[in-house]
C-alpha cells in the first residue's frame, strides 16, 4: 500500500490560491487546526472555504485568506459567535453564502455522488436564496412538489482531523460524533487527514470497532502526524476543548492590538512553536 505520510507543509504545498477547500469537524470540535495554522504560514489565498465553521473559518478570515465562505454557521460552541467571523461579516469584502446546516451536507453528498444537485425541502421559503441568488428549484417528475435543488459543493481539497490513522490513509474517530468528515473527503478531489497518532493498521482495528474507521484509504491523499493538532478545539476522547485558551482567543479577537499580540505569541512560528506557546501558557496558568 502507498505510504501517504507527509507533513503539514507538504499538504499546504499541494494547495493553491483560488481553490475550494472543505474543512471537517463542527464548530469548535475536532478541527484540523495544525493544517489551518500551516495554511496561515503559507501564501495561499483567495480561498473558497466550505465549513461547519469554527476557529478554522475565523483564523482564515482574520488573515484575509478567504474570498468566499460557504457555511451553515460559524461558532465556538461555548462562545456562540466566532468573533473574527462576526467582524468579517460586518466589515464586508468577502462573499458569504449561508446555507441551512442540512443543505450543506446535501451539497457535499451531491458532490460525493457526482450529481449536479440533490432535491430538498430545506431552504424553501427562507432567505437562503438571498445570499445565493443562483439557487434554483426543481419540479418533481413524479408529482407536484417544487423542491430546492441544492447544488453539489465540489471541493478541490478536504482537510480533516481524526484520532488515529495508518500511513495508508485509513483513519479512525474515537469520539461520539463522526461529524461529516468522510463526506468532506468524498466530495473532494484530494483529501488530507491529520491524526493524533499514526499507528499500524492492525492497531486501528484493535482500538475500536471497524465502523470507527470512518475514513478509508481510497479517500485519502495525505496523512499527517499531528499530536494536539486540533487544539484549541476538542478531540474527544484524547482531549477536550481548551476553554481557557479559547476565551483568550475570543477576547484578543475583539481588539486589533490584542489580536496582534496574540498572533505574535502563538501564530508567528511553526507548529512546534505553537504547541510550546500553548504549553507554556498552561504551565503558567497552573502555577499562578
Amino acid at each position, binding site marked *: 500500500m502507498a505510504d501517504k505520510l507527509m507533513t503539514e507543509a507538504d499538504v499546504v504545498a499541494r494547495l493553491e490560491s483560488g481553490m475550494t477547500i472543505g474543512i471537517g469537524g463542527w464548530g469548535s470540535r475536532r478541527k484540523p487546526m495544525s493544517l489551518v495554522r500551516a495554511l496561515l504560514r503559507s501564501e495561499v489565498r483567495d480561498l473558497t472555504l466550505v465549513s461547519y465553521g469554527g476557529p478554522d473559518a475565523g483564523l482564515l478570515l482574520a488573515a484575509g485568506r478567504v474570498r468566499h465562505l460557504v457555511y451553515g454557521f460559524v461558532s465556538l460552541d461555548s462562545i456562540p*459567535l466566532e468573533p473574527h467571523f462576526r467582524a468579517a461579516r460586518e466589515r464586508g469584502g468577502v462573499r458569504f453564502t449561508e446555507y441551512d446546516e442540512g443543505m450543506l451536507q446535501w451539497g457535499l453528498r451531491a458532490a460525493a455522488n457526482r450529481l449536479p444537485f440533490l432535491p430538498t425541502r430545506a*431552504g*424553501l421559503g427562507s*432567505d437562503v436564496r438571498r445570499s445565493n441568488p443562483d439557487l434554483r428549484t426543481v419540479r418533481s417528475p413524479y408529482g407536484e412538489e*417544487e423542491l430546492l435543488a441544492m447544488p453539489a459543493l465540489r471541493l478541490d481539497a478536504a482537510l480533516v482531523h481524526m484520532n488515529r490513522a495508518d500511513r495508508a490513509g485509513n483513519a479512525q474517530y474515537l469520539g461520539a460524533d463522526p461529524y461529516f468528515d468522510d463526506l468532506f473527503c468524498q466530495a473532494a478531489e484530494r483529501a488530507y487527514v491529520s491524526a493524533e497518532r499514526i499507528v499500524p493498521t492492525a492497531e486501528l482495528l484493535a482500538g475500536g470497532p471497524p465502523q470507527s474507521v470512518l475514513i478509508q484509504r481510497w479517500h485519502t491523499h495525505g496523512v499527517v502526524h499531528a499530536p494536539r493538532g486540533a487544539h484549541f478545539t476538542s478531540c474527544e476522547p484524547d482531549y477536550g476543548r481548551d476553554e481557557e485558551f479559547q476565551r483568550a482567543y475570543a477576547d484578543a479577537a475583539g481588539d486589533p492590538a490584542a489580536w496582534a499580540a496574540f498572533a505574535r505569541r502563538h501564530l508567528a512560528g511553526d507548529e512546534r512553536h505553537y504547541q510550546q506557546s500553548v504549553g507554556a501558557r498552561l504551565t503558567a496558568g497552573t502555577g499562578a
Partner: protein
Amino acid sequence: MTDVAAVDAAAGTATLAEVCAVACARAWRGDGEILASPITLIPSIGARLARATTDPDLLLTDGEASLAAGVWAVDAAPARLEGWLPYRAVFDICWAGRRHVMMGPVQLDRFGNANLSAIGDFDRPQRALLGMRGAPGNTVNHATSYWVRRHSPRVFVERVDVVCGVGYDRAATAGPTAAEFLDLRRVVSDLAVLDFAGPDGAMRLVSTHPGVGVEQVVAATGFDLALADQVPTTPQPTPAELRLIREVIDPRGLREREVRGR
C-alpha cells in the same frame, strides 16, 4: 377540592422562570415518539419536564451525539443513554418530520418568520449573528416552537431582517411544498404564551404569565397581536412539576439567572 387547594398553595411560590419552563413543556404535549430538541436552558428544562410527566415517549439528546434515557439535571451528563444520534442522523430525523424543535430567535415576526442570522441587511449587517443554522430546514419539515427570553419590540418585529425560520406568509408565497409540513406551534416568552391561530397564521396571544397584563404584552410587541376575547393567565406549575424542576432537573437554580421578573 383538596388537589386544587394544594395546587394553589404551591402556585404562590412558583417563580417566573418556573412558569416559563412549564409553559415550554406544554409545547411538546401529545407529540408522542419524536425527538424534542430544546435550544437553551428554559426549553431544556421544559422538554425534560414534559418527558418526566405527560409525554414519556419523547426522545431527548444529551446535547452531544447520544440519545439520553431518564430524567437528568440540565448542568449534568445523563446517567443512562438509549441510542446514538450524531449530527448526520439529526438531519435524517428532521427531514423525516419526527422532531419538534424549540429555538431562540433574535427576531420573530407576526407570521412566525424567525431570524438568527444578522441584524440589518444580509450583505452588510449591522450585527452579524450565528447564521441560518438549521432553521430553514427545521421549519419546513417539522413542528417548531420558539422561546424568547425577553419579550420586547426589538424581538417581536413587524418584519424580520433575515428569514431563517420560515413563517406562514413566506411559506404560502413559496408554494405548497414549502407549506406542506410547516407547523409553528407555540411561542413562550417571559411575559406570555402565544400561538399562530390568528388570521392567516398570525400570532395570537394565548395567555399572560401571572402578574402580566394584556396591555403590557401588546406594548412589548412590535406588531398588532391577535387577541381572544378572554386571555387567561398561564397555568401555574403543579406541585409535582415544581418538585421535579427544583430537585431533579435544575437543582442548582440556573433558571433564575435566565429569567427575571420585571
